């Protein structure tokens, strides 16, 4: 740090005083300039005048920000105690920033991965411009596994500077309207990214900084959001250009919206993008979620620093609840320590206070630990949830003795308690659509029904029929009443799931089953196809002008026509079936490729 000789400082003065505080940093004498920075999203609701001003500024000078941002980081690194004062006047910085790992040792990321990244950068920095083809490193991993932290830490370890592509603040609609009224051209984020890439390719960073180019690492964290094929194609092309011609070692961070929550329908794009970049010669490092142990270690270190005594129990809980996301874990810890009972200095009273809390948490743990106010909600993949429902795991022990106010049930209605959360909760976690869930259950449930119990099979399928009935009422007959539809949807899902759980009274003992994609979808697809084909065939034969009901064609004319071999084009029933089968095969290939994208269908 401190190699920057550039002395120009840029001041944004915003008209709102109270916000200025956010941006002004206390500076150190060696820099002797005031450096107010950090555009935050708060600014979008400022007065239009200053808004347009800063917009101009931003568009023309976005590199300036990067430089300044680095200043800030240097400050942070040099003076860890020296906190940016926040607007409210309290002295609490985010621990996530405060305890940002500054050396490789502090990183909670797997050692191996860090080494991988480090050696990659070392090589690139040593032999700077040699093999331009592999100057890009893809770092993928779910949110909060320390991707950028690793890059920063490695960079500081190697004495390199990180130059980051700063995502421009999103333009909100009013702003856009205002801008276009005042004659400014709107540049999309994609455009900005493109021009950034262009600049980097052509001039490197030399236009922006005077440091020796060998010690700069380019970090592209936030790729512009793309929507639709065209924009995606642009992004891909852009990245390819970057890949081919960038001279700086570049780290490209890619969020891995892992298997767990594939709600984004365009995850396919990202995978494809990664793949194509890999093929073009990029290297890839995948970060796994951080292990509970290392999160625990980090958390307790922070606790020691902050001099909070937090029980191992809680730390453990937080670590587990975070799901490998260290950022959320640290924030949770901070939040946890904010609780009113915390005492800063008196260790005596502190321990006495925390104990009941601990006990409570223990209880929570026993109860399933849902009561924690922090931690990420676990998401389940749809397949996982389906597996739970289909396998129908229940407590094996004796049923609770019939006492108190339990309702007495006939034997055939009694089921052991489920070994899972309430089905509705599981459904929530899996956020699947009711229709898809019903279809999947319908397709797969028969595999899990005991061979001798056709009665069970019936009760399961009758419940599924009920669920379908409920879903069917959605189809247009109701005037669009979304609230009611929601209720019906969830009721149908509940019936389908609980019906499967209840009806399958004699579940087969657990054995491995593949969960198939509903054949129904394929059938519907080929049905549509066949219908079209049948109509066109009908029209071909009967240039005579006659409308005919499809059902009549299918049930009466077609068989007869087949017997009569009354074929204009030679495509009989048999071929129709074969095309149907063919379609199906195509489908299955699709399915193999992206098994997890249930939402697509």
């Amino acid at each position, binding site marked *: 740090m401190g190699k920057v000789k550039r002395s120009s400082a840029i001041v944004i003065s915003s008209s709102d005083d109270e916000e200025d505080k956010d941006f002004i940093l206390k500076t150190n004498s060696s820099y002797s300039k005031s450096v107010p920075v950090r555009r935050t999203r708060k600014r979008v609701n400022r007065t239009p005048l200053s808004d347009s001003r800063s917009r101009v500024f931003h568009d023309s000078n976005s590199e300036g920000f990067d430089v300044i941002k680095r200043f800030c980081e240097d400050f942070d690194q040099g003076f860890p105690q020296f906190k940016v004062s926040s607007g409210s006047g309290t002295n609490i910085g985010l621990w996530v920033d405060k305890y940002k790992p500054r050396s490789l040792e502090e990183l909670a990321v797997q050692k191996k991965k860090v080494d991988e990244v480090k050696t990659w950068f070392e090589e690139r920095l040593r032999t700077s411009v040699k093999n331009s083809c592999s100057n890009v490193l893809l770092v993928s991993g779910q949110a909060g596994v320390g991707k950028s932290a690793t890059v920063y830490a490695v960079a500081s370890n190697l004495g390199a500077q990180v130059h980051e592509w700063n995502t421009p603040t999103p333009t909100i609609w009013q702003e856009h309207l205002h801008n276009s009224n005042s004659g400014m051209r709107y540049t999309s984020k994609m455009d900005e990214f493109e021009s950034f890439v262009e600049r980097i390719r052509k001039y490197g960073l030399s236009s922006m900084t005077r440091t020796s180019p060998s010690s700069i690492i380019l970090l592209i964290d936030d790729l512009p959001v793309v929507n639709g094929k065209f924009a995606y194609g642009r992004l891909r092309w852009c990245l390819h250009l970057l890949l081919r011609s960038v001279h700086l070692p570049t780290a490209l961070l890619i969020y891995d919206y892992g298997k767990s929550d594939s709600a984004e329908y365009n995850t396919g794009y990202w995978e494809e993008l990664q793949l194509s970049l890999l093929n073009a010669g990029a290297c890839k490092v995948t970060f796994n979620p951080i292990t509970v142990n290392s999160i625990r270690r980090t958390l307790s270190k922070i606790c020691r620093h902050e001099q909070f005594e937090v029980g191992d129990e809680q730390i453990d809980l937080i670590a587990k609840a975070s799901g490998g996301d260290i950022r959320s874990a640290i924030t949770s810890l901070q939040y946890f320590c904010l609780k009113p009972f915390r005492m800063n200095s008196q260790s005596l009273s502190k321990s006495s206070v925390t104990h009941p809390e601990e006990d409570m948490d223990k209880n929570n743990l026993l109860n399933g630990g849902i009561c924690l106010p922090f931690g990420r909600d676990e998401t389940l993949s749809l397949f996982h949830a389906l597996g739970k429902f289909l396998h129908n795991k229940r407590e094996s022990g004796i049923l609770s003795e019939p006492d108190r106010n339990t309702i007495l049930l006939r034997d055939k209605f009694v089921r052991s308690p489920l070994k899972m959360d309430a089905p509705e909760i599981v459904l929530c976690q899996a956020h699947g659509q009711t229709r898809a869930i019903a*279809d999947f259950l319908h397709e797969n449930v028969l595999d899990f029904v005991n061979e001798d*119990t056709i009665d069970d099979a019936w009760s399961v399928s009758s419940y599924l*029929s009920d669920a379908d009935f409920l879903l069917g009422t959605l*189809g247009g007959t109701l005037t669009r009443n979304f609230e009611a539809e929601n209720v019906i949807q969830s009721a149908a899902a509940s019936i389908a799931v609980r019906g499967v759980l209840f009806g399958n009274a004699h579940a087969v003992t657990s054995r491995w089953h593949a969960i198939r994609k509903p054949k129904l979808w394929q059938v519907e697809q080929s049905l549509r196809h*066949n219908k079209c084909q049948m109509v066109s065939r009908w029209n071909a034969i009967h240039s005579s002008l006659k409308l005919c009901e499809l059902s009549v064609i*299918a049930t009466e004319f077609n068989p007869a026509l087949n017997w009569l071999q009354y074929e204009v084009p030679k495509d009989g029933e048999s071929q129709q079936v074969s095309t149907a089968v063919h379609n199906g095969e195509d489908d299955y290939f699709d399915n193999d490729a992206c098994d997890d994208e249930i939402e697509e269908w």
Partner: protein
Amino acid sequence: MLWVDKYRPKSLDKVLVHQDIAENLKKLVMEQDCPHLLFYGPSGSGKKTLIMALLRQMFGASADKVKVENKNWKIDAGTRTIDVELTTLSSTHHVELNPSDAGFQDRYVVQEIIKEMAKNRPIDTKGRKGFKVLVLNEVDKLSREAQHSLRRTMEKYSASCRLILCCNSSSKVTEAVRSRCLNMRINSPTEEEIVKVLEFIGKKEGLQLPPGFASRIAQQSNRSLRRAILSFETCRVQQYPFTSNQAIPPMDWEEYVSEIALSMLKEQSPKRLFEVRGKLYELLVNCIPPDIILKRLLYELLKKLDSELKHEISHWAAYYEHRLRLGQKAIFHLEAFVAKFMSIYKGFLIETFG
């Protein structure tokens, strides 16, 4: 040309079955005007034939000059426009279409088409503003909304157009629509009538019919004239001269259904249920309507069932047929019926044979 089309009576005078109805219709359109009509009756009973003949009676030969159009309707429905593609068959005097092909957008289609027709009314020879006839097939498959909007448009444009509705079951047509139409029930032809028609065709084609052959075809036709003629022609292609014990080729899907029924009777287990599901899919893929499958399946099962089970099974078939109409995906309900049957039948077997 298929015999079905070739020997379709072109005018009301020439019909062989339902002569009484034809006579009445003729009287009805003497004045070249008529009320709205609703033809209903089972498939293959001659509804369409009567309608075509009626149109011809009304408008003369120009009703025969029809063209098929694949029209794209752009419908402005408040906030968005809806594109509906539909095949129509039209002459200068009438338009025919299957509105239910438009799926759940059928209501827009019905309104829009009637409006459009009302806009350009033909002028007849005497200079009076005439009316157009709109033939709507499969009205029973229209959604409830569509039927309601149909009713309103019927009243509004009754000056400029007449509706001829055609459906299998009038019970699925709303009361309001039914009461605004003259209802014509077209019965299935009796077997004797079918035999008469077949013999007529045989004579025209110059074929030698062995005694009893026509009646056997009639028996197998389920009293559907269309089916009878189709199988008659099929027999002709397969083997001529006819022999009196010649096999009449069955419909392939019906054979398939009876196969399913047999396999259901043979074994009752979830695994078998799964196999049956596969076969049902096969039928559905080939565009056999689910309700027809269910009906046929019940028919095949009843043939082999003990009489004490018949009632219960029929009850459940009716139950699931109802479900099938209300629900979205037919297979769920078909399969539930199959499962229920298996469950009942297995219980019965255990009870009787231990």
